[in-house]
């Protein structure tokens, strides 16, 4: 459809105009009809129309993709490399298994039953009560530019905003990682740290693994096993478990996740080597698809689909609880980003002018009581050190990437997190060509 829209339609219209113009000229030159108006008036009007089309099209495109911000970012005096901290693990004596669950578009705002027909997160909230020791970062923010899945992955697992080297001023930027075999290979991310400490990293997602190079990112950063759409099809998952535009339903994903955690936990008990099981849901990506296991009891079916997806995730949490896995396994549940708000998406009335849209999150650490306080208002970049500390690692200054762990009571003075909000946003927006040039080069430690 996209290729039809952009590649074909303008071409067809243009060719039709050219042919129409050609025949009109021929008719006139053969004396078939005389122009009723002066040719100069026609030419002026045509020129103005073409000018309006070019200026209008360019302006619309430039504002849609934020070309102005991009130019501003290119001239920023800030450089992410000056604030980036390689995670220095000072202790792993308490390292434990980790389950990391990304909720597609898991925005906490949708838990407000005064704004929406019901609290879509209620099933998951009930499975993760604070009274049992589940914690959460209040006002967990999406960084400016972190509104899509890969940006959510990179920010929460590598502690940096996702940018390409296409922005690099380096003349040979296209030579960097041109083979597409690695993804931010020069950066140390969560999977790298875990792999270095003996973890087995496994990823399960319902969607196509290769989309947006997610598989390359995971493979580059220590994930040795990953399952996606093609794997589920090959495994003989029933057709009713798929939505044609995306992939495997959350119900079937969580069913497979139960089997996988049984296997991983048993292996970990045998070998003594911990695991990291990462999951990514998809039911809640718009346009939503109502699977047969989801009873729509709201006027807007998006709310019901969110609730059904959370019920599936809650079921997985309950399963871990029943099997005793929560006694030696840390769990981090979070939205991958805020809900998308494209023109065709739901809830513009509730969300377009909302002053504080936040990302849902829950953290479980075995043996930790409900009295722990996590730092409020942090963004996705600080989730990287937070996850490492939840997995039982201790980090120098509790820092990794640009983030500072939510468990740290104080932010180091030289950290990016200590910057004033305006400066911090400018830092995250800066293209930082040298930093990203090196990050995309390919392999860590070079």
């Amino acid at each position, binding site marked *: 459809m996209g290729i039809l829209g952009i590649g074909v339609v303008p071409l067809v219209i243009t060719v039709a105009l050219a042919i129409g113009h050609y025949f009109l000229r021929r008719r006139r030159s053969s004396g078939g009809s005389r122009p009723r108006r002066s040719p100069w008036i026609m030419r002026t009007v045509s020129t103005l129309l073409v000018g309006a089309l070019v200026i209008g099209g360019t302006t619309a495109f430039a504002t849609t993709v934020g070309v102005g911000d991009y130019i501003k970012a290119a001239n920023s005096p800030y450089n992410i490399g000056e604030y980036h901290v390689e995670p220095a693990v000072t202790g792993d004596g308490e390292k434990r298994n980790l389950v990391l669950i990304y909720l597609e578009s898991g925005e906490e705002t949708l838990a407000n039953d005064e704004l929406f027909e019901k609290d879509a997160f209620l099933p998951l909230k009930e499975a993760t009560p604070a009274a049992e020791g589940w914690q959460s970062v209040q006002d967990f923010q999406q960084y400016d530019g972190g509104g899509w899945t890969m940006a959510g992955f990179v920010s929460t697992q590598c502690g940096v905003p996702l940018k390409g080297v296409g922005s690099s001023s380096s003349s040979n930027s296209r030579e960097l990682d041109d083979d597409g075999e690695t993804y931010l290979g020069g950066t140390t991310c969560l999977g790298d740290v875990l792999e270095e400490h003996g973890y087995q990293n496994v990823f399960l997602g319902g969607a196509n693994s290769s989309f947006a190079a997610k598989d390359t990112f995971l493979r580059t950063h220590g994930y040795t096993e990953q399952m996606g759409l093609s794997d589920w099809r090959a495994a003989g998952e029933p057709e009713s478990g798929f939505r044609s535009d*995306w992939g495997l339903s959350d119900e079937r994903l969580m069913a497979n996740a139960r089997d996988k955690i049984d296997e991983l936990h048993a292996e970990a008990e045998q070998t003594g080597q911990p695991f990291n099981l990462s999951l990514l849901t998809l039911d809640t990506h718009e346009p939503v698809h109502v699977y047969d296991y989801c009873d729509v009891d709201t006027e807007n079916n998006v709310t019901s689909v969110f609730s059904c997806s959370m019920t599936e995730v809650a079921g997985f949490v309950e399963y871990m609880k029943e099997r005793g896995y929560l006694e030696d396994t840390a769990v981090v549940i979070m939205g991958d980003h805020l809900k998308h708000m494209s023109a065709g998406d739901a809830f513009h009335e509730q969300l377009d002018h909302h002053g504080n849209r936040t990302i849902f999150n829950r953290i479980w650490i075995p043996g930790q009581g409900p009295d722990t306080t996590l730092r409020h208002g942090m963004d996705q970049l600080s989730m990287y050190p937070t996850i490492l500390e939840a997995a039982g690692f201790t980090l120098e200054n509790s820092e990794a990437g640009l983030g500072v762990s939510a468990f740290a009571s104080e932010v180091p003075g030289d950290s990016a997190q200590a910057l004033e909000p305006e400066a911090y946003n400018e830092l995250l927006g800066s293209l930082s060509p040298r930093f990203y040039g090196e990050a995309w080069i390919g392999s860590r430690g070079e």
Partner: protein
Amino acid sequence: MSGRILHVTRRVGGIMGRLLLYVLIWAGLALLIAAVGIRFYWGEISVNQMLLNLVSVETDGGEDPLCGWAFWGSVSCPWSSPLRWP
């Protein structure tokens, strides 16, 4: 002789001018449709997001398939390796 050169120059200039006109119409339409499509399907995005997604040509099981919508996507994407466009 100079009359002939002038005639040829005028003719070539006319053809080039008309060609430029149609290229501008095509570019304007393509940019406008791309902008409307991106806004409808993804809302406002960033240049980085666009560049990082230009290679995403799959239509099944993925997210943010901007490739097809991007102005030059239909030309460049099918031959691009993953991550050619960071």
